[in-house]
């Protein structure tokens, strides 16, 4: 009986203290008070941002920056909740996110730090070298299930995709599938690297990854966006001149409230040395 009474008191205490913390919400989140700069979001931007941080720390050894992945939505959600200073996003904000951010913060800045293209990759042993956008769509909608139908060998194919939190997932859906839903048997890999890994191992899989992730052990396909007239390889030049159309800007999103904290790092990323890191990591410079 006693324990029940005590536990009741404990719960009351706990809930009262949680109530008081709600009121302290207006004074800002604990997180934003610490000196550490928190960056969160897109997996595509993780290796890039990591390299940028390394470069930045060489110049500013006393800075403290933390980097967490999880996907574009993770970063934006954390920004809305005040759990991060910079949200890395590899897609545009949805209208819902936009209005939620607008409610909480005065002004939102969306800085483009680099461009990325999605490469469509297969195992090097696969005889197929090119594909039209329509064929690609059919694969990911589940209308094509065998490589034979694409002029390849007679084997069941497996189309790999990313997690639903990923910017690549949303970007590919909007630009290749024209907004239609992926077939639900698609394995959802938690990172770009995992897709590359799987494709290295299996001759009959196909997947999409950020161009910076393409290794020598996988083969990037040339894609046609005009129904098979011209096929375009995902190279830096072709992305820059706009011929390769599955390309997207990579953003850092932050609130002007934390400008002072964010800007030193952001300025470094946008500087020449920062942009050199962009290129060496396999992404495309902003200019």
């Amino acid at each position, binding site marked *: 009986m006693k324990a029940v009474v005590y536990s009741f008191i404990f719960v009351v205490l706990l809930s009262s203290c*949680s109530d008081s913390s709600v009121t302290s*919400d207006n004074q800002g989140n*604990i997180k934003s008070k610490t000196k550490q700069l928190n960056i969160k979001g897109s997996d595509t931007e993780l290796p890039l941002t*990591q390299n940028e941080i390394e470069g930045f720390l060489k110049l500013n050894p006393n800075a403290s920056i*933390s980097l967490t992945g999880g996907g574009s939505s993770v970063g934006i959600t954390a920004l809305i909740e*005040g759990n991060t200073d910079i949200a890395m996003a590899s897609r545009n904000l949805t209208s819902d996110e936009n209005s939620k951010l607008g409610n909480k913060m005065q002004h939102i800045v969306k800085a483009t730090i680099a461009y990325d293209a999605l490469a469509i990759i297969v195992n090097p042993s696969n005889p197929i070298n090119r594909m039209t956008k329509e064929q690609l769509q059919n694969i990911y909608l589940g209308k094509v299930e065998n490589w034979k139908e694409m002029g390849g060998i007679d084997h069941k194919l497996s189309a790999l995709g990313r997690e639903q939190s990923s910017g690549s997932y949303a970007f590919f859906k909007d630009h290749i599938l024209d907004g239609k839903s992926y077939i639900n048997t698609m394995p959802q890999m938690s990172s*770009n*690297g995992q897709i590359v890994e799987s494709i290295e191992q299996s001759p009959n899989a196909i997947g999409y990854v950020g161009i910076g992730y393409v290794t020598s052990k996988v083969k990037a396909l040339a894609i046609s966006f005009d129904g098979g007239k011209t096929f375009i390889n995902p190279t830096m030049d072709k992305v820059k001149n706009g011929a390769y159309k599955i390309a997207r800007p990579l953003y850092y999103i932050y609130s002007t409230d934390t400008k002072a904290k964010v800007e030193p790092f952001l300025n470094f990323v946008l500087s020449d040395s920062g942009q050199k890191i962009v290129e060496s*990591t396999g992404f495309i410079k902003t200019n």
Partner: protein
Amino acid sequence: MTTDKAHKILKRKKLSQSIAFSIFALITAVVVLILLGILYFIFVRGFPALSWKFLTTMPTDGMTDGGIYPAIIGTFCLIGGSMLFAFPIGVLSGIYLNEYLLDGKLKNFINMMTNNLAGVPSIVFGLFGMALFVNKLKFGDSILAGSLTLGLLALPVIIRTTEEALKSVDDAFRIASYALGASKLQTIRKVVLPIAFPNILTGLILSIGRVSGETAPILFTVAAYFLPKLPHSIYDQVMALPYHLYVICTSGTNIEASRKMAYGTALVLILIVLISNILAGIIRNYYHKKNKI
């Protein structure tokens, strides 16, 4: 004739026994081989990565070089934080259950709840920790939130081992203490706890082993992908070994090159578990012998 038949039956029985036993021995050997296989695989491939530099420097070059220093420190922070919270409460709770509470409905209820808490999947702890500590109490992703979540996860283990340890203390000690006029609290403090202490300690060490390897509860409460700095306050995020292993074997631009790091990290994780198991065994044996004398 009959003895011959009986002999045959006996022989057949013997044969089926030896067949059955050899199958069991074979399967056991397979199980042991699987385990040794995992250990061998991690040790052989992880050992070359292990060096002083690996243990004491920051990760560099997109996690393909450098070390795992911040992840080690982060994991120790989380172990420390969670034990600071869970150990005292767990021990007090074990004392209450064994020394104060009489058998009855309340004790059954609390025991049931403790068992159920022990069975709650670690990801549910993660959900709960995120909802309560990170969001409701506004700790943010922080050592504080992660430690409390891990502490709750370790509680049932500590309570159980404390209870077992106290149970194994002979009632004669308690009766003798009361006969000398000591109060209940005095008896617990001066007589029961010192005897039970080594066993309680093994519980602590074993739960450290468990806490150090948990990933799901820290996923949304503390873990950082890359944070080449040591934490300054309990509101900072940290890197942690299990999450770091998850990250380097699934993401990064060059998985091939970061494999070496992954093996090394896995080895360090296993070593922590191994050392805590061995330590617990040593303490148990040491006091066991001492008590016998």
